[in-house]
Structures are given as C-alpha cells and as structure tokens.
C-alpha cells in the first residue's frame, strides 16, 4: 500500500476500503485469539480455507480471522454473516458440513448452535445470545469486525480518523480538554483522571517526553488488555499517537507481558504496518507531527505493572519501583516527563475524539464514566469478557450475563481487582460497579478481574493464595512489603493448617495496617486487601478454622479427609489406579478404603469416581457433595 502523505489520502483510502467491504456478500468470521487458538481454532481456519477452495467459494466468501472476542469458553467460535448465524465449539471435521449447508446453503446445523446454559435452549444468532445481549460492547465490538493483522480492516471501520481529526482540528490543549471532559479514568487499576495526567505531563518542563502503554497485565484472572491489544492493536497505537500529540512526545513504548505471545506479535506487526502506510514515523499525514512506537517485552514480573518499576524495566533494569514524591509525568522514563496509561485507556481515546466527550460521559455514573471491560471467570456458567457501562450492578454481571453458578452450587463471593482487590460477599451483589462504590466496600475495580467463587471455595485459602502470590512477586526493596507479607502469610498458613489461635486475628489486623501505611508502592499498600476483605465479610470461616479446626469448604488440606462411602463404592478400582500416592487399597468389587496416612489429599480419586462415593469431611462434618 502506498504511503499516505495527506489527510485527504487517508479519507480516500478509507472510502475505497469501505466500498470493498460493502461488496462482501458472505463473511465467515472465526476467532483466532489466544483462547480459541488453545481450542484448536487454527486447524478449523485451515480447514475452512481448504474447503472454500474445494467448493469454489473462495472468491465469493470472505473469511475473516479476528482477535479475541472474549467468549473463549465456547471456542472456537464462528459467525456467518449476513445471517449472523453463530456456531461454537467447532472441530475441523465440522467444517465441510458447515460450508455446504450453512454457507453455500441456508440450513442451520443444530448441534453446533450455542445452548443457553440458563434455559437449555439453542440459540441461532450471535445477537440473541444473552451473554452478549446484556453488554454494551463499545471497544470489544471492534474486535469482532477486524482482522488485527490487517491495518486495512481498522481503517475501513474508521480507524485513524480520530488522529487525523486531532492533527487538523485540535490544538494539544484542546485534546487534553476533550479527554478531561469525557471523565475517562485510568483503566489499569488506579483510576486516575486521564485528562489531568496528560495536562500535568504537557505542563512538565523538558523537550523530550514519552508515552507508554502498560500492557503488563499481571493481575491473574484479568485478560481484557490481552484481548484488546491482541484483537485491536491499531486502536491502542492511535490512542497513543493522540496522547503523544497532546503532551508533545515523539516516542512511545508498548510494554507487554511475554506470557501473551500473540499480543506481542500483533502489536509488533501493527507498528510495522502503521509505519509502512505513514501513520507512524516522521511527518504523519503531512502534518509535521513525528511519532514512533517500540515494543518492550515484560519478563514475567508482576511488579512491572507498577509505573516506576515498568519504566525501570523498559530502561533495561531490574523492575523495582521508586518513591513517587516526584511523579512520572515529570520524571519518568529516562528521567523525562512520561505519560503512562493502560491498554484499555489508550484504546478508548480514539472513540472519545470521534464521538465527543459528551458521548463518553453519557455512560456510567457521576464519578466513573464510560464502559469498562471485566474478565468474568471462576465458578460461573458463562465466563468471558464483559463490557458494561460503569455503575452496572454486580448482580447483573454475575447472574444476567454470567448465567449464575455452575452445577447449582450457591455463589458465595466475587473477587474483584486481583491481588490488590478484595472479596465481596453475595449479600453485596446489588452494589454498582464503579471506582467509588467498590472502594468503599473494601475492594476495587482494579484492572477488571472478577473471579466468582462458590461454596467450594475457602476464603481463608483465597487470602492465603493472594498472599503467597504477592510474597513471590514482591520485589523486596522495602521492608514492610517484603517482611509484612511474609508474616501475614505465616499467620494465615497457621490458621489454614489448624494451628491458628484466636489472638492471631488482632495481630493480623495490626500487621495489615502497618503494611498498608508504610509500603513504598501500590503493591505493598494494597497487599493486605484480600486479608482485610475476607476478615471483614467471612470472619466466621476464619473462626471455624481456628476454633473448630474445620474448613467448611473442604479445601484446606490439613483440616480435611477424603472418605470412601462403603455403600456407594462398587470396587471398580478407578480411584485405586488413579491415586499417584498409592493410598487407596481394596480388593476388586469390594468397597475400597483410603489410607489416611498415605493420602496427600489431591482429590484425583474423587474426580474420576462415577458413583460419587468419595467425599470430603472436615472436623467430622461432610463438606459438600462432589
């Protein structure tokens, strides 16, 4: 494609691409994101290509491979347009039938349709799926329309229009005013007003400034940044270019986790394509504005999601944070003024410029504007990415979109905000999800992870899990975080292993305060959150562990025992063979028994038992039926 030298050339190209797109009659859209690839979507895609050729449809049918659409659980997913026919969990063997019956023909293959887990009904079109219908997919809807490896697709849906608009119509201050008026706040967890950040960085002294995209999505259980960067990298680049224009930067960095290989590859490719066409580099669209972007890969350290640690890592150093008495907008990357925003924040900027601040501010609550993507995971029927307006009640996300609990067990809590967030009990599910409300309740929006937990989840174990995670990820620079987390984990481990004493709870609460108040960076300051919130809402579970030496959920290994019900056991021997520790004994066709001394309580035996004969008991009380 030729290099674009003027804004009119971009508009001409867009008109051309749109005309070509309008001429597409039948379009097969298949997801090629990380989740669907794990479910072997690449084999399906190859088969579709081959089959279209075999049936001589390759000229008349467009096959579009998109990035992640956030419905990973049902992958590989496929939509056939214009009928909007939705097929899921496709295997390569289905392809021939799909092409002949639903692409060449007009039939519907019932077995490949999506079944709504709530009603058990088969659903034909993508638009009717409750998981999608209850959402407001502003950002994610773009992922559905474009091939992330083709800049043409992004331009065709209006991509880079906002950059062109900014370069011709907006002075840098006007851009900042517009972003400020939209009420956009940082999507990475901090929730800092984006316009304010940009204004401080523009005002900061210095000729050389930088913009950085934080795609080091280390929060386990959140993957919206992966999805957006992987599925729509140009939106992030366009947002960064707009930000660079506003603050006066000429160089940008995308810092992306190496655990997201597809996001690394797609952002690199997008940069190359944008350079080729003249949307990155010197004199963009003839405006005199220069801007280029480089990719830096994260090395698998959670702390590098913290802005100062991230910048140290981009500089090739160990990712240790520093005190932020001077903010990074003044003294950031290589001691230059730097604006760092999260993937989702950057990706929101082009639509704000295109549609106006008023449009963005019309969604959401008083203090939290726009839509936010959440990663709904855990013990819920529909898992995936959920984009809703800020202020949507938790209940709507978990039950209307998520479809409620799996296996009919009761939902006990939802963990929001990752290791820095907290656990909210089911009694608070009417709370609206926005920055202020969740913080008041002792949790946070964070980067948008939402892990649903049912009665099979032990809250002491959850607190222990996050502390172990944070202990491992603490960089060790400051004492409160390095040692405080270790001591808190020590106490929680005592409790979970039956050595807990009542006086340890006040001690824990004292430690919580010290770590919160005195840690250097946000990792340490928020590290006690999972402990505080579980203590606040699930104190009875802690007390059961301490007083009765009992884990009500049947999770904490030292407090539980696996038992075989002699009446249900048929002596089939499946568990006996499955046990890696040879702890199960018994003759064929006779009830088996578990040797409590050899049992390591891994649960493999119960997983394979068809007769539900293996149960867990704790303190002599049965925990839950498997």
């Amino acid at each position, binding site marked *: 494609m030729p290099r674009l030298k003027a804004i009119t050339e971009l508009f001409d190209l867009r008109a051309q691409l749109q005309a070509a797109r309008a001429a597409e009659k039948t379009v097969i859209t298949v997801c090629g994101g*990380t989740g669907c690839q*794990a*479910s072997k979507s690449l084999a399906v895609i190859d088969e579709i290509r081959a089959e279209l050729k075999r049936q001589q449809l390759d000229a008349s049918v467009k096959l579009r491979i998109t990035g992640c659409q956030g419905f990973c659980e049902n992958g590989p997913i496929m939509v056939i347009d214009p009928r909007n026919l939705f097929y899921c969990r496709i295997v390569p063997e289905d392809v021939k039938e799909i092409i002949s019956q639903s692409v060449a023909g007009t039939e519907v293959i019932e077995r490949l349709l999506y079944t709504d887990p709530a009603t058990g009904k088969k659903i034909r079109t993508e638009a009717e799926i409750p998981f999608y219908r209850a959402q407001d997919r502003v950002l994610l809807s773009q992922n559905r329309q474009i091939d992330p490896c083709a800049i043409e697709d992004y331009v065709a849906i209006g991509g880079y229009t906002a950059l062109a608009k900014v370069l011709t119509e907006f002075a840098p201050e006007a851009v900042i005013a517009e972003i400020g008026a939209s009420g956009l706040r940082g999507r990475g967890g901090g929730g800092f007003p984006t316009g304010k950040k940009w204004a401080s960085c523009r005002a900061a002294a210095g000729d050389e400034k930088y913009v950085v995209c934080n795609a080091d999505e280390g929060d386990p259980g959140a993957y919206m940044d992966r999805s957006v960067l992987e599925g729509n990298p140009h939106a992030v680049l366009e947002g960064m270019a707009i930000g660079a224009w506003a603050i006066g930067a000429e160089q940008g960095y995308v810092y992306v986790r190496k*655990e997201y290989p597809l996001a690394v590859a797609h952002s690199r490719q997008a940069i190359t394509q944008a350079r080729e066409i003249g949307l990155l580099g010197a004199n963009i669209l003839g405006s005199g504005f220069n801007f280029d972007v480089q990719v830096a890969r994260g090395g698998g*350290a959670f702390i590098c999601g913290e802005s100062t640690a991230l910048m140290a890592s981009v500089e*090739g150093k160990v*990712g240790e944070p520093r005190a932020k008495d001077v903010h990074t907008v003044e003294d950031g990357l290589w001691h230059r003024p730097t604006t760092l925003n999260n993937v989702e924040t950057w990706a929101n900027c082009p639509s704000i410029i295109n549609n106006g601040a008023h449009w963005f501010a019309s969604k959401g609550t008083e203090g939290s504007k726009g839509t936010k993507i959440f990663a709904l995971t855990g013990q819920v029927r529909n*898992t995936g990415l959920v984009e809703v307006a800020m202020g949507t009640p938790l209940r709507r996300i978990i039950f209307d979109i998520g479809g409620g609990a799996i296996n009919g067990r009761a939902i006990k809590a939802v963990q929001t905000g990752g290791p820095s967030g907290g656990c909210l009990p089911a009694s608070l599910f009417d709370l609206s999800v926005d920055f202020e409300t969740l913080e008041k309740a002792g949790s946070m929006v964070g980067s948008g992870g939402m892990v649903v937990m049912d009665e099979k989840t032990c809250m002491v174990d959850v607190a222990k899990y996050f502390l172990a995670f944070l202990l491992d990820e603490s960089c060790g620079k400051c004492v409160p975080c390095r040692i405080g987390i270790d001591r808190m984990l020590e106490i929680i481990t005592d409790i979970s292993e039956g050595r807990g004493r009542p006086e340890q709870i006040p001690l824990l609460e004292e430690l919580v305060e010290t770590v919160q108040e005195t840690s250097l960076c946000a990792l340490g300051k928020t590290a006690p959150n999972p402990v505080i919130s579980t203590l606040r809402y699930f104190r009875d579970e802690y007390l059961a562990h301490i007083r009765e030496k009992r884990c009500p959920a049947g999770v904490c290994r030292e407090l539980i025992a696996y038992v075989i019900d002699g009446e249900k056991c048929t002596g089939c021997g499946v568990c006996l063979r499955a046990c890696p520790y040879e702890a199960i004994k018994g003759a064929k066709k006779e009830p088996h028994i578990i040797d409590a001394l050899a049992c390591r309580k*891994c649960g493999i035996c119960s*997983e394979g038992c068809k007769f539900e004969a293996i149960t867990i008991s704790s303190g002599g009380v049965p925990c839950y039926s498997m």
Partner: protein
Amino acid sequence: MSQPSIETIVGDRKSQPHQLIEVLQDIQEVYSYISQEAATAVSHYLGVPLIEVFRSASFYKALSLEPRGKNVITLCTGTACHVRGSNPLLDQAQALLKLDHDHGGTTKDGLFTVECVNCLGACAIGPIAVLNGVYHPHMTSAKLTSLIAAVREAEEMRGTDAQT
C-alpha cells in the same frame, strides 16, 4: 540445527544497555536458559556490568539460570485456574514426575521441566496447561496423566529409533 551465537542474537543492539531484558529474553528463547558464558558475553556486548546481568536474570521469572528440560510443562496458577483446581494438577505433575521441589522443577533425566505461571490470560478455559508452547484447555488429572504419558512414549520411540 545450529543455534545462533550470542553475538548474532545481540545483533545491532551492541552497546545499548537498555536492551538488556530484551536480549536476555531472546537468548532464553533460543537456549532455554542463560548460561554463565551467555551472561558474560551479554555483559561484554551491551556494556552492562556482569552483576547487573545476573541481577536481571534472577529477578525476572521469564529468565532461567538453570538449563530446562527437553519438554516444558507450564501450569497456570492464576486466580481463575486456582479456583478451578490448578493446585491438585501441580501436585499430580510433581508426583508423576517424581519432583520434590514445591513449584515444579526439572526431572533428573532432563526430559521434563514443570513450571508455574501466574496467568496466561486464557482464564475462561482454565485450568490451563501448556506443553512446549501448545495450550491445553480444561485440564483434568486424567488429561494431564495422558499428556505426560504421550510425551514419554514419543521420547521412548525416538530413543529406540536412534538405537536401531
């Protein structure tokens, strides 16, 4: 197949200390670990003190100072995978491969390395296990057992092929 030298991997990034993490990651990808020789060479080419190279190599989880096994099994232990039972899977892998380290490790014959990762961003299809870069969604203990058995079998076949 010959591996590119450290100098080739460094390429045009010589004397650019800020490229340290990027270069180390590229070396890790090719050699699967950062050897003493590699660290010394990187220190020389980039102009970074050796101690800084080791500091980074030991700080970042993506970098390993020990050679890894021929087959790498990565288990996701992110929150979503944790509540869906990634812990028992790790235990099982440890037991099947007779590893005594807490969070994985390498088998004595160098055939397997088991390691954990905090999140792969594929939470909806967890628990996830990755075998040599290939994602295996919805892991169960039975699936993990057969996965390990399949690798063993393939390795044994290769072994007998080499002998004959």
